């Protein structure tokens, strides 16, 4: 699916890649995502090692940003309390389109261990903002977060920029016929 994979194509040898403008734009976007990190609990501790040299998150072409206005996606890592949920909503709305969200860990996905008696915990960050990739785990290993990042990249790669509605309808038909 990636643009560089087409170099294997026998018709496109000689250093020339044929592609649509959409492919090239998506290729650029998916390989230079800037992110706003929202660390809340132990998942954020795992995320520290993501940024350190061993797992080296920046090799995905991403750069941490301190402000939502420069960020392409937000990483919610940890337990979202009701008090913090309102702040997350504000940050999300400050981000510029196109924007994405990765929810990391059981707490951000569904409330995690606080699902029953957590009177102060939002049972899943998808109740207030749309989530594009869920990373399961309690907390997830850095490899799982890398997998989540790759999922987000492939999601951006497939995204329609032109003729959005037609392509969305096409996708829905594919999903209905179980071809995807």
């Amino acid at each position: 699916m990636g643009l560089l994979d087409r170099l294997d194509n026998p018709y496109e040898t000689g250093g020339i890649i044929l592609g649509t403008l959409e492919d090239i734009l998506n290729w650029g976007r998916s390989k230079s995502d800037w992110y706003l990190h929202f660390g809340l609990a132990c998942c954020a501790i795992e995320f520290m090692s993501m940024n350190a040299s061993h797992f080296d998150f920046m090799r995905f072409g991403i750069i941490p940003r301190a402000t939502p206005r420069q960020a392409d996606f937000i990483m919610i890592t940890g337990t979202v309390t009701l008090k913090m949920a309102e702040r997350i909503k504000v940050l999300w709305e400050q981000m510029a389109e196109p924007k994405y969200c990765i929810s990391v860990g059981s707490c951000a996905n569904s409330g995690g261990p606080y699902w029953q008696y957590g009177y102060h915990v939002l049972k899943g960050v998808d109740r207030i903002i749309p989530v594009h990739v869920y990373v399961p785990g309690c907390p997830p290993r850095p490899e799982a977060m890398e997998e989540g990042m790759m999922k987000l990249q492939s999601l951006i790669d497939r995204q329609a920029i032109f003729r959005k509605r037609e392509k969305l309808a096409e996708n829905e038909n594919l999903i209905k016929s179980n071809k995807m």
Partner: protein
Amino acid sequence: MNTTEIFELLREKFKDAIIDLVDNPPSDSFINVVPEKLFDICLELRDNPEFDFDYLMCLSGVDFPTNLQVVYHLYSLNKKHKIVLKVTVPKENPKVPSVERIWRSADWHEREAYDLFGIIFEGHHNLIRILLPYDWEGYPLRKDYKEPETYHGMRVPY
């Protein structure tokens, strides 16, 4: 100084304000006191050189069916002895004198006990919620607490 000696000395000075000494090993032995005299007792425990309790290790709240309780763990860094004080108040009127002016560390401990148990510490300079949002209703660590259905439009139950 052991707990019994501290209890005897306090009994001499404060008479009926010191209710009893519960010595039940292996748990820490503790002294029950009345809430009205609590501030004076704590001041004596800190300022009397024989006691010299300069460190409030922990201040915690307990919920009983009809009462609320505050537990004080005190320690003396110089004398290396410790004591546990307990004060019990009825649930309808849970007022306890603040010891914030005696040990500064009691400031946030008392705010937390107020936040989660609804114990009112009289004389505290800034008794507001510390962990939960300021507009939260109810005291979550009480056994009869029911979690709200929604908070600011967000559904709370799973």
